[in-house]
């Protein structure tokens, strides 16, 4: 099994979001960066597939700033074999720009599987994986929460509204991973030591601004004062109306 896992360095989910002086981006002062949690499922899946196959290679690919080497090391500490950083000053808001750079790096790599997290918790783009699949002409299943692979055939399950879609696909393929697929391991002490010695190639890439131009980043509207809708069961129709029309959650 030769598996590529594409990961992203993202602000920790507990990050207190402060908008930078340009009014368009996150103020990164004091922000802790981590391996995107959905990518952890991808790394774990790759490791389990390699372990099951008894042979193979798990390669971590990341597009990001120089500091993303640390993020790659985290995946190497979990057990991946080597890492490649596509070093760019910035990650474009346009996921297609990222996809093109990643696809170019993966092209002709002889991969059995290319794994991504289903989305990054910072930009919620959930698109780079399937775009890379298109660019490489590979079959793709997104948001995989259960996976079985026999030989060159795979069966994946993905959660859809009110059900689970069971999807068949041939290898090689691009998969994006969802919560529930596995339980990502913590790096062990030995893994952390070993990760320091694993190869990590840094390749500068030029990623253009792309076709998504950021105009402004703003804080979400302030929470409105709550209100008592009414008393007793008779208040329910009005509650439903408010949840649908005002809060828009039903």
């Amino acid at each position: 099994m030769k598996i590529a896992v594409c990961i992203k360095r993202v602000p920790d989910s507990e990050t207190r979001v402060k908008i930078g002086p340009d009014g368009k981006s996150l103020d990164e002062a004091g922000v802790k960066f981590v391996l995107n949690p959905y990518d952890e499922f991808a790394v774990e899946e790759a490791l389990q597939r390699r372990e099951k196959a008894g042979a193979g290679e798990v390669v971590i690919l990341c597009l990001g700033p120089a500091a993303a080497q640390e993020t790659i090391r985290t995946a190497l500490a979990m057990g991946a074999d080597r890492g490649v950083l596509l070093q760019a000053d910035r990650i474009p808001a346009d996921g297609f720009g990222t996809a093109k750079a990643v696809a170019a790096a993966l092209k002709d790599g002889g991969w059995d599987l290319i794994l991504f997290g289903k989305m990054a918790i910072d930009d919620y783009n959930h698109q780079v994986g399937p775009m890379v699949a298109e660019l490489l002409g590979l079959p793709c299943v997104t948001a995989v929460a259960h996976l079985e692979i026999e030989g060159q055939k795979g069966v994946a399950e993905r959660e859809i509204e009110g059900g689970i879609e069971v999807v068949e696909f041939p290898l090689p393929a691009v998969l994006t991973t969802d919560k529930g697929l596995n339980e990502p391991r913590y790096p062990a002490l030995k893994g952390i030591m070993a990760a320091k010695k694993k190869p990590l190639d840094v390749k500068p890439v030029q990623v253009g601004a792309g076709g998504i131009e950021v105009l402004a980043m703003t804080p979400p509207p302030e929470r409105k004062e709550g209100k008592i809708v009414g008393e007793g069961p008779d208040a329910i129709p009005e509650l439903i109306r408010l949840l649908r029309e005002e809060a828009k959650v039903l």
Partner: protein
Amino acid sequence: MSAVLAVGEQRDGVLRKVSYEVVTGARRLADALGGSVEAVICAAGAPQGLDRLGSFGADRVVTLTNPAFAKYSPEGSAQAIADRAKAGAYAAIVFAASATGKDLAPRVAAKLGVPLAADVTDVGVESGAIVVTRPVYAGKALLKVNVLGKPAVVSLRPNVFTPVERPKAGAAETVAVTVPAGRVTVREIKAAEAGSLDVAEAQVVISGGRGLKEPANFKVIEELAQAFGGRAAVGASRAVVDAGWRPHADQVGQTGKTVSPTLYIAVGISGAIQHLAGMRTSKVIVAINKDKDAPIFKVADYGVVGDLFAVVPRLTEEIRKLHG
């Protein structure tokens, strides 16, 4: 080139409601651009409910038919929609950021070689450019972006664009399309496993507290959760977990550990600060409590004062109607 392509969804031959939202969003763009809306659906045959798309503002409704479209065909639909997009001069293509839309939109955008603005909560046109708003950092900030692609491909966050009835004399047509046999095929759709949802992951969390009086009464909470059809999990306040009514895994709050569902319904929970710390980042909070001075009402967006044993079953009934 000011037409907007609205990509609807069907499942098992029935149009999905999210298609109305897509058409509504597309209509908004088309009106601002002075253009028309063409709704397009991939299906094995014209799906049920298709005629209603016109009433939400579609000028034309096109069903792209292929036997492979009986189930969702990722590659086939992507090809068919991309072909359709290339053949016309569309200013924008609008998808739903549903499970299917999240899968399909990036494939189409990549085939067209244009960017995708995903999961947007607002769309508009400024100086002729398509401008959208997307929540980022788990909703802790909003990003306003200019979508420069021709066409501009966007996907709309579900439940945000309330369908607005804007009847148009929508012309319906059916076009049989040929697409290559897909390598990725949907074998079946299984029912979601009930009760497997974790409070930390569910979109809807309904929590019960001491107001339920005894463990067996959690049934009213569970029934309400079921009415949400696999999207809701049952949570509990620490008081009832400590009393042994519910397993610890259901507990919301305590450590500053939080759940952030789209909708949080607190039933019979007074709102000890330990609990509030765990759920106050929920998008919308509903509180149902007998005591109108309960602290929970201070953080709730909507409160209903009353006997939960009368209020909750009524709510369950209404939710069932919505999801029925």
